[in-house]
């Protein structure tokens, strides 16, 4: 097997993560070949909510840095990327959640992130779709939304990036084998193929977490923020069983995205009616007006979850030349810019834009075996 050297860097996967990495590498002067098999991707299935999360320092670092990059990129993005800085409203349905919201606001403000508490009695004025009796909300005005599939396409439209439709069947450091049997090589290979990463690297600690979404017909509705519940913060981290959380996102078309669910131990892509119903009832318990709207499509997708919820970004400790950018769970659209900048910095030995240790593949794969 004599591999053909095809580019400076091969990126496997043309989802939002592969696209962001390819774009950053191209910006650094690299010739990039992006290989994608055209599978059901998380990028096509996801919700594109761009949000700062602060459950731990690593999550805050990667989301805050990324939000800043999205705001810089925003004005350049074409219309069909549907980028908006519409803000997030975290709803508190009881005193406990209100206390959690206040604690969160203090933490965020301390980290330099703009946010404000909205008292319960002014919530309906801000978002008339909400029910009476909510205790309040935390508003993050600088969060946003994005239509990720078009943004990935836009990022890949670059003279230094070539794209090829093929399935990678085997990896060996900086060499990849395609389903045609052909071997290709480059200086570095970036693995950015979402939940399918384990097909090529079974040692990666990545598990699929299924999620359902629904989109409504267009209505002249007045929803402006992405509306989500604070108890989402706790249900996200349940490690077993099916859970639902209220997430309502206005699309620039006048449609609403309604989510979301989380399920482990399944790779069945079908919509499951019982869980979809539970999810919608739950959302309608915060926003009763939803029940009158017509849902025109529902679908499910898979998040690539790691045990600690943080992605794997960096060189594979046992495979020199193979770089990982996988495991972005439910936040990969948000965290694509930080992933790309960090990966490029590590690849070229430059200053890390955010501290890299929390995302280092070595935390699961051990230390490098090579010098």
């Amino acid at each position, binding site marked *: 097997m004599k591999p053909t050297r095809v580019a400076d860097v091969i990126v496997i996967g043309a989802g939002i993560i592969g696209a962001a990495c390819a774009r950053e590498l191209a910006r650094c002067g690299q010739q990039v070949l992006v290989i994608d098999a055209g599978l059901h991707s998380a990028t096509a299935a996801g919700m594109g909510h761009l949000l700062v999360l602060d459950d731990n320092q690593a999550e805050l670092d990667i989301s805050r840095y990324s939000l800043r990059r999205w705001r810089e990129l925003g004005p350049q993005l074409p219309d069909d990327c549907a980028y908006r800085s519409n803000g997030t409203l975290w709803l508190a349905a009881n005193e406990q959640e209100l206390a959690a919201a206040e604690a969160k606001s203090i933490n965020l403000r301390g980290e330099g992130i703009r946010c404000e508490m909205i008292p319960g009695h002014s919530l309906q004025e801000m978002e008339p779709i909400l029910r009476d009796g909510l205790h309040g909300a935390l508003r993050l005005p600088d969060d946003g939304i994005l239509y990720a599939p078009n943004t990935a396409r836009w990022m890949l439209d670059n003279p230094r990036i070539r794209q090829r439709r093929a399935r990678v069947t085997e990896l060996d450091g900086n060499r990849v084998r395609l389903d045609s049997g052909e071997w290709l090589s480059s200086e570095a290979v970036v693995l950015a193929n979402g939940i399918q990463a384990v097909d090529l690297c079974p040692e990666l600690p990545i598990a699929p977490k299924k999620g359902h979404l629904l989109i409504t*017909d*267009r209505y002249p509705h007045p929803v402006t923020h992405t509306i989500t519940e604070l108890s989402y913060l706790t249900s996200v981290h349940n490690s077993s069983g099916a859970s639902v959380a209220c997430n309502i996102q206005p699309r620039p078309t006048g449609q609403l995205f309604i989510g979301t669910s989380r399920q482990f131990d399944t790779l069945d892509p079908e919509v499951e009616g019982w869980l979809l119903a539970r999810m919608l009832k739950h959302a309608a318990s915060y926003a009763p007006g939803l029940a*009158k*709207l*017509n849902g*025109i*499509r529902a679908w499910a997708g898979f998040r690539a979850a790691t045990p600690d919820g943080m992605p794997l970004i960096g060189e594979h400790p046992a495979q020199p030349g193979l770089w990982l950018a996988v495991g972005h769970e439910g936040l990969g659209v948000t965290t694509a810019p930080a992933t790309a900048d960090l990966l490029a910095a590590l690849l070229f030995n430059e200053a890390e834009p955010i501290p890299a240790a929390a995302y280092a593949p070595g935390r699961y794969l051990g230390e490098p075996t090579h010098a």
Partner: protein
Amino acid sequence: MPDLHLDGRPLCVAPGTTVAAALALGGDGSSRTSISGQRRAPLCGMGICQECRVSIDGVRRLACQTLCQDGMQVETQA
């Protein structure tokens, strides 16, 4: 014989006529206008494709799954 209004124009149809059929009988056959300004019309006829959504008495419904009733106000501009 149900008497209804299609985009404000009166229309009389045979009992058992679906709103999708009424669109063809009394209008341009279309159910709505898409976000890019195209007129869209019923396609699958069995409640799956969602192309035939119309406004009936102010509520968004599927024309192919709805029978015409006396006094209905059907709007195809949304």
